[in-house]
């Protein structure tokens, strides 16, 4: 039996949780919101032509892996990443790491994670967890969205490391190999904030606040164009992406508000503290939006008005966030 002295800490989102936990293990104590903010985790994108689970793709976060890559670059970390074509080589490399007392981050598919409730088992291949030890029967797993540590058999871990479909992990494993003793936290925070403001205010039709407006327009058309059933299926997908496990609620807005609070302390910038409060209020409005949208799904309301009022809410959110990110941009100038 091999076991590294890794401490499990539950997080809202898997990717930030794994990074924060791996770095804390190396003596670089960072919080999940801090990693989320530095890695510019807040985002919005609408891809009407890309269908996920037979509904358009919406995302409240950037591409899987991007938050970590940005955060690592901005903090000056060196991260070793490996992918494998053979499961045997992937298992051997992982075992080597554990023997050398290196807790290791893995990208895995969710569908075959046996400790997840059945309702959550979708073919989503960009989940992250840490393997921190090995026993005679399997691996010791720290899945950041779980309250406590868990285990997977050798076969189970192989199956999730070699899950197939979009974003197939191909055994992807990663771990920090070098980290600065005194990282430039202030600089990293500023870069992270600037990047997020740029994303959310991007002059592109499907990204950031413009993406939200596009969704709002689409919502008003769904019921007449596609029928109530499909419209509700799309709405459910939007709500799930916003509120599902990993988002910390309100489409990551609360994690971001927590980051701004920490950033205000680090930078000694009280303006960020005020903006954190504003972001919390915006997050609450996103929750209101989810609540109303779920009511529309449930009642199967046939009045076109229900969809219009949802669209108005979303337009309002886009307006608020546009103003918010402009203020945020000038607050760090």
């Amino acid at each position, binding site marked *: 039996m091999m076991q590294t002295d890794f401490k499990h800490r*539950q*997080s*809202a989102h898997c990717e930030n949780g794994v990074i924060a936990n791996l770095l804390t293990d190396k003596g670089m104590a960072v919080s999940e*919101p801090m990693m989320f903010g530095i890695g510019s985790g807040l985002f919005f994108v609408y891809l009407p032509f890309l269908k996920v*689970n*037979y509904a358009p793709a919406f995302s409240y976060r950037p591409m899987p892996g991007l938050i970590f890559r940005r955060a690592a670059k901005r903090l000056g970390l060196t991260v070793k990443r490996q992918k494998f074509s053979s499961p045997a080589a992937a298992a051997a490399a992982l075992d080597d790491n554990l023997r050398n007392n290196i807790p290791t981050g893995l990208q895995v598919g969710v*569908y075959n994670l046996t400790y997840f*409730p059945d*309702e*959550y*088992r*979708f*073919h989503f291949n960009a989940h992250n967890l840490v393997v921190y030890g090995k026993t005679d029967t399997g691996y010791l797993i720290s899945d950041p*969205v*779980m*309250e406590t540590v868990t285990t997977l058999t050798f076969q189970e871990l192989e199956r999730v490391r070699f899950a*197939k*479909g*979009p974003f*197939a992990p191909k055994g992807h494993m990663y771990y920090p190999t070098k980290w600065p003793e005194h990282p430039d936290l202030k600089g990293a925070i500023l870069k992270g904030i600037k990047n997020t403001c740029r994303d959310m205010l991007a002059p592109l039709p499907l990204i950031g606040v413009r993406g939200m407006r596009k969704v709002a327009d689409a919502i008003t058309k769904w019921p007449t164009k596609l029928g109530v059933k499909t419209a*509700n*299926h799309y*709405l*459910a*997908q939007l*709500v*799930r992406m916003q*509120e*599902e*496990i990993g988002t*910390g*609620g*309100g489409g990551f807005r*609360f*994690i971001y*508000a*927590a980051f701004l*609070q*920490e950033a205000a302390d680090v930078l000694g910038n009280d303006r960020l503290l005020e903006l*954190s*409060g504003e972001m*919390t209020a915006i*997050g*609450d409005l996103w*929750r209101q939006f*989810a*609540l109303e*949208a*779920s*009511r529309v*799904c*449930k009642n199967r309301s046939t009045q076109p008005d229900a969809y219009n009022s949802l669209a108005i809410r979303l337009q309002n959110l886009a307006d608020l966030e546009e103003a918010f990110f402009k203020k945020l941009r000038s607050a760090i100038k």
Partner: protein
Amino acid sequence: MKKDEVPQDDGSLSKSNLKELIYATDEGGRYTTTLSSGWEPKSIALSQSLDAINERVADALAKVKGGEASVLYYLMELHRMDVPVLAGYAGTWQWRVKRHFKPEVFEKLDDRTIKKYADAFGMSPDALRHFKPE
């Protein structure tokens, strides 16, 4: 969201005794974390998605029984896959997977191809060849 307003509804997670971490503010407005057992709007959205999947499974079953589709089509839906995912697991092209949805084509598949699909569903090749959906 204030810490004492974090919903504790019965959700799909609470059945398995799982709670998720939520960021919320304390009395002084500082951020802290707390656990939530679930929130009704989320459960509604999730069950809506699951209903849609179950409908697809039922539809696939009807097609298999009506001789319009092979069991491959039904098993794909049952495992919540779509064509790109199934093609990925079977290590083949999407157009071939679609062709194998035809009962007469599926009947004649060689052992190697059957084994690939069987592995994708975690069953034995024999079980796949003689699979009778209920």
